[in-house]
């Protein structure tokens, strides 16, 4: 049975979540004529309509509540743990139980199922595509969100680890392959898919990962739920990317590392070339000399790194000189096949990084 945290009534505490809950219940529960006790959509501020609806309900349920009698709740007031809230709970249809609301928020919702929360956490714990510390914290978040608020968090279909190929296919991001925390199994998009909340008119709405339906009604209300998730995430800690994205959580705080230098550090460890992210990206073509600009992550991954024939000739010549080889390369010697070979070699280092994603460490 859901209870209010403080009393509701004229000049009483009237906390926003308590008023929301009482009003929502009065909106859901119908009188003998089949009309909701609260004629208007539920909201979070005490008002005359709230009092009117409470009195009407208490009057219709006088035998059980006895409002206005000595030792009972005054008419028009709902006290914590008292008869009115108990009667409201009893009067709720089965479809609208059990109700819940997070303190200091405005959205009444149906509790999620324990089995769903367990399944979500288990799926994370057994996912081999997450780094171990991250997945442990993420699973804890799912557990805690359910324990405290009876809300089930679920990862979105594309919210797990993304391979470099999957990252390359993402269009609504600036992050190319190797430039997303998702590529390293240290980030997740985890939201509220299946969350059932009570609309203003008392009807149940099942929402999507990003609480799109609730956001369309009220950005304030949806943000309150994200705030509740992020308050728990912060304690673990897991970090979000607000204000730019609300669903994403990652292992490291964004400003504590450089994603590009971290990719380069890994490639320098597992690849065959020497890399730098300044300028982004440059490489020595595996020839051991100076680094040359070789394009963006997306270009390199697509196999179309914009290799300059002048640069490649210079790199080859420097290599030949270092090895005391007689061969001298002219720019005209750099044909399409040679360029293609080095484009593939550049991509191969990215592929090596993708394969060795677990070895990634953050670098400033």
């Amino acid at each position, binding site marked *: 049975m859901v209870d209010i945290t403080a009393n509701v009534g004229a000049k009483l505490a009237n906390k926003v979540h308590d008023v929301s809950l009482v009003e929502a219940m009065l909106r859901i529960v119908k009188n003998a004529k089949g009309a909701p006790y609260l004629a208007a959509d539920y909201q979070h501020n005490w008002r005359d309509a709230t009092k009117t609806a409470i009195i009407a309900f208490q009057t219709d349920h006088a035998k059980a509540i006895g409002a206005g009698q000595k030792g009972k709740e005054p008419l028009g007031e709902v006290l914590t743990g008292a008869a009115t809230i108990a009667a409201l709970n009893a009067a709720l249809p089965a479809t609208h139980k059990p109700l819940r609301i997070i303190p200091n928020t405005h959205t009444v919702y149906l509790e999620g199922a324990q089995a769903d929360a367990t399944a979500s956490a288990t799926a994370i714990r057994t996912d081999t595509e997450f780094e171990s510390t991250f997945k442990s914290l993420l699973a804890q978040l799912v557990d805690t969100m359910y324990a405290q608020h009876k809300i089930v968090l679920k990862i979105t279909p594309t919210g797990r680890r993304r391979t470099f190929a999957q990252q390359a296919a993402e*269009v609504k991001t*600036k992050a190319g392959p190797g*430039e997303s925390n998702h590529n390293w199994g240290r980030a997740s998009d985890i939201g509220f898919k299946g969350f059932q909340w009570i609309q203003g008119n008392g009807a149940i709405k099942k929402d999507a990962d990003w609480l*799109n339906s609730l956001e369309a009604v009220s950005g304030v209300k*949806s943000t309150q739920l994200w705030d509740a998730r992020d308050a728990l995430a912060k304690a673990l800690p897991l970090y979000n990317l607000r204000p730019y*994205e*609300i669903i994403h959580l990652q292992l490291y705080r964004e*400003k504590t590392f450089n994603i*590009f230098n971290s990719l380069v550090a890994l490639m320098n460890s597992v690849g065959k070339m020497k890399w730098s992210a300044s300028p982004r990206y440059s490489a020595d073509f595996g020839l051991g000399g100076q680094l040359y600009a070789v394009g963006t992550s997306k270009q390199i991954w697509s196999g179309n790194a914009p290799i300059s024939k002048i640069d490649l000739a210079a790199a080859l010549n420097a290599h030949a000189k270092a090895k005391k080889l007689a061969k001298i390369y002219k720019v005209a010697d750099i044909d399409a096949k040679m360029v293609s070979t080095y484009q593939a070699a550049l991509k191969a280092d990215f592929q090596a990084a993708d394969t060795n994603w677990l070895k990634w460490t953050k670098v400033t």
Partner: protein
Amino acid sequence: MTYRPIVMASGTVMIVALMLLGCKKQDVGPAASASVTAVDAGKDGLSYHLVAGQCANQICPPAIELVRGQQQLDRAVLLFGGDAAELRPAQEDATLVLQPGIAAWTSGSDAAAVTTAIQSVTLEQDKPALLAQQSGGFEHVKRRYDLFAVQNGKLRKLWSAEDGAGPAYSAVFVVPAATAGAQDLVLMRGFTSAEAQPDDIKLERLHWNSASDSLKAGTASLPAVTAGRFTTVAKARAAAADGCHDRYAVVPGSAVGSTAGDFALIQIVPDQAAAASELARPCAASATKSLATFAPAAARQQE
């Protein structure tokens, strides 16, 4: 202006007093900051300036200043800020859909960069407003829009909007209003579901209503360039992944006039000139582009 006590004839004192009064009347605020670009803000020599912002906690949002002459009359700080204040000409930023001739400015660097652009919007005669557009974020990109006007010598924010949560996208187009010489805004909001569903795109036309002193929202339709019709969403999305159509959306064919129950790959544009430009843009892919009108369901219901 400083006052120096001077002993002189009363007439001269009167003249000096009047001069002092005149100087004081023009001291209406701090000096305007150095701006990277400015837009006319109507009569009385007013202009909107885009200026570098001040930093707090490594976030440095740019600001809009209302300026007359060299004086800043008002200042409004935008929401998104890079990790450095300096504004520099932006490299091509595909995340902001800007109409031709609108310059963009970047502050901050790498993953912390934010792009900002401003343009004039003539809400009605003698009421030039300012549309500020911003794009920020790296892993996940978000856009936001703020519309300012001048009221009583101060900046007044008339309207704001931003991308919704998730795989959402948006653009704001400035288009001619029904009233000659005036302009409306059309806000396009899209959402790409991860499932095999077409994009959900909504258009909202915002028109200035002087009687209510506010923007009024209504339905809208816009030109669209189509790059093929497909029997399934999956086929349309595959066609969009050809490296030439990644700005295109997959919509129900009915939204662009088809009755075949198919799906279309489209790019919504603000006007015929933009459509012509997109039609002429070369693509190695084989899809033939054509012109259509995009009308979301709400607009079609009103017809």
